[in-house]
């Protein structure tokens, strides 16, 4: 993988990436202290954040993401971390779906044997903004990468 340096320029024409995904100045990974962010945050009533307690078993992340893939749901953000109980992990999952779809995906999720508890979190937009801040680092998606993403 070549993600640690700039992407080479594509040798043929590729669709132009939306402005939002253009790096403001350079394609180098942003250093701390930079204030410009790639995408403005818009409130979205189809944005939901779930806090999911799962058994801390190997493979549990794969199982949860396979479920989203299988039911044709796209995950916007996903964070996994430990809890005070070393047998239990917490996943915070942000999805862009309407309420009905959310109900469907959570009922499927709830059936997973390793999923212990699911709760919807109140401020999905704020959570997503914070996750974006944490995750918005590294090289910018330009050229072929950005094209592939759309």
């Amino acid at each position, binding site marked *: 993988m070549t993600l640690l340096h700039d992407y080479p320029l594509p040798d043929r024409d590729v669709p132009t990436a939306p402005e939002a995904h253009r790096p403001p100045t350079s394609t180098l990974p942003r250093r701390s202290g930079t204030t410009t962010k790639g995408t403005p945050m818009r409130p979205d009533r189809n944005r939901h954040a779930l806090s999911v*307690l*799962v*058994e801390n078993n*190997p*493979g549990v992340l*794969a*199982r949860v993401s*396979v*479920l989203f*893939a*299988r039911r044709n749901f796209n995950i916007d953000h996903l964070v996994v971390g430990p*809890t*005070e*109980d070393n*047998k*239990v992990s917490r996943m915070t999952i942000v999805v862009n779906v309407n309420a009905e779809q959310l*109900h*469907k995906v*959570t*009922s*499927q999720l*709830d*059936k*997973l*044997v*390793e*999923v*212990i*508890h*699911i*709760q*919807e979190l109140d401020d999905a937009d704020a959570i997503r903004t914070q996750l974006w801040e944490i995750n918005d680092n590294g090289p910018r998606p330009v050229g072929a990468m950005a094209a592939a993403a759309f």
Partner: protein
Amino acid sequence: MTATPVSSDSITDGATVTAPGSTGGRSADGTPRTGAEQLVDTLRRVGVEHIFGLPGGAVLPLYDALYEAEGIRHILVRHEQGAGHAAQGYAAATGKVGVCLATSGPGATNLVTPLADANMDSVPIVAITGNVASTAIGSDAFQEADIRSISMPVTKHSFFVTRPDEIAATIASAFHLAASGRPGPVLVDITKDALTAHATDELRQLPMPGYRPASVPAPQEVRDAVELMLTARRPVLYVGGGCIRAEAHEQVRALAELTGMPVVTTLMARGAFPDSHPQHMGMPGMHGTVSAVAALQKSDLIVSLGARFDDRVTGAKDSFAPGAKIVHADIDPAEIGKNFPTEVGLLGDARSTIQLLITEWTRRTAEGATYDYAAWNARCRGWKSRYPLGYDEPSDGALAPQYVIERLGVLAGPDAIFASGVGQHQMWASQFIGYEQPRRWLNSGGLGTMGYAVPAAMGAKVAMPGSTVWAIDGDGCFQMTNQELATCAVEGIPIKVAIINNAALGMVKQWQALFYSERFSASQLPSAQIPDFTTLAQAYGCVGLRCDTREDVDRTIEQAMAVDDQPVVVDFRVSKDSMVWPMVPAGTSNDAIQHARDLTPDFGEDE
């Protein structure tokens, strides 16, 4: 979501400990036990009597522990897919958990199709696979495959065990998971070193705090459902495979007779309500009866009992039963409201749910509540008598496949078990055999797996040695798994196979005839010449018979019925051009059902 916040210390054991625990790590005389020995002990404890499997390097320790293991019969199959479907047939015929066993890598991946099949049709099976030693996991070792991950989307759950101490508890938990709640396949993948090492074994059952299968619906929901049933004018009981899995057939009948509502049984529920019953409108769906399709389509209330509104039943969703409210009873919360908005959801086991409906209905009617379905029932009976199932004799004088299947049903009788493949013959076997009892009709409904019939029949025969078991198979399907005839011949499992040989992948050909201008791309088979099914059967140590004419059908079936010490294969050479009717063309509305080619029934005026 009904979830409430919990702290981690309030997370308790969500599993009901019904499966026995383990052996305590030592045998009676105090010698330490290996993981493999503990596994066999646990199988015995949870009541396993039969295993279908095929060995290989990674499971050698387990096969050694099985060698001469008392009380467990291992049946050596010829292909792991056969082991999986045999476990399914075993489970579907009895309700017991079926067990299959395979080695790592290709052995395990060969189980994927039966796992997916069992997942779709909610069949309780446990698949045990060996894997390479834990020290080699992740190194692309010889015959290493990550079957735990591969099977994730097609199992109820899958375990990967690397420590001998966890084997007994995991196996016990796997059986509990497979059989409880909505039944399904569970895979346990165990590394070879865990099988060979000595276990100290402190775990009795895995905690599984997240596993809480539903039990009975809330009383308010039951009251609401009965209220809707009483006020409905055109209700229908839509009975699905859940009523078979939950042993709810008696309750279904009691509810039907108590209320007088018309009943439809899905492909998965054939036999959950007697076909001969006057309230039975038949099977709904793409190849269902006109009366069953019309009863759903024109209803004002659908009481769904363990069914899941599959697209093969509903046709185009936007025009399915436009006037109907839905009461949906299911053990799986994710099914309720999955495909259609539901008025009342009844979350729980079908048997206890229906029992509660019966009690509430009885209470309400005793208090004087009235209902009136007379006009509706008359209308349903009208459809049933005006549009019965039927078929045309082939114009070329060839044998009608429907006739063969009809005679098989009559001559084998209501106690026989039928397992079918997938295709035209499957639809005819569902349509033209009368099912009076549950667990007599085994088929691959959700996944539609060609090759299911022969191994599933084998599994059913092992479970029910006293019953006649017929596989009704297509010439295409049969060629996918007929190697298990060798297993049947060698192991003394005298199943009977009726090949409905139309020299075609007939269902594919039918679609091409109807929707692709008769361009029969890759759907014709030379099955009248290759293979020669009768000599193939003989090569496998079975009796091979052939029948081409109507006059010979009964005699041939009787000849096959007379053999009970050997498997029998009958090659019924039938018309190449017969089609399955009625039919709702894929993607169209149920209203567009044709009871015969280009003939659309008249449902009559709405009230």
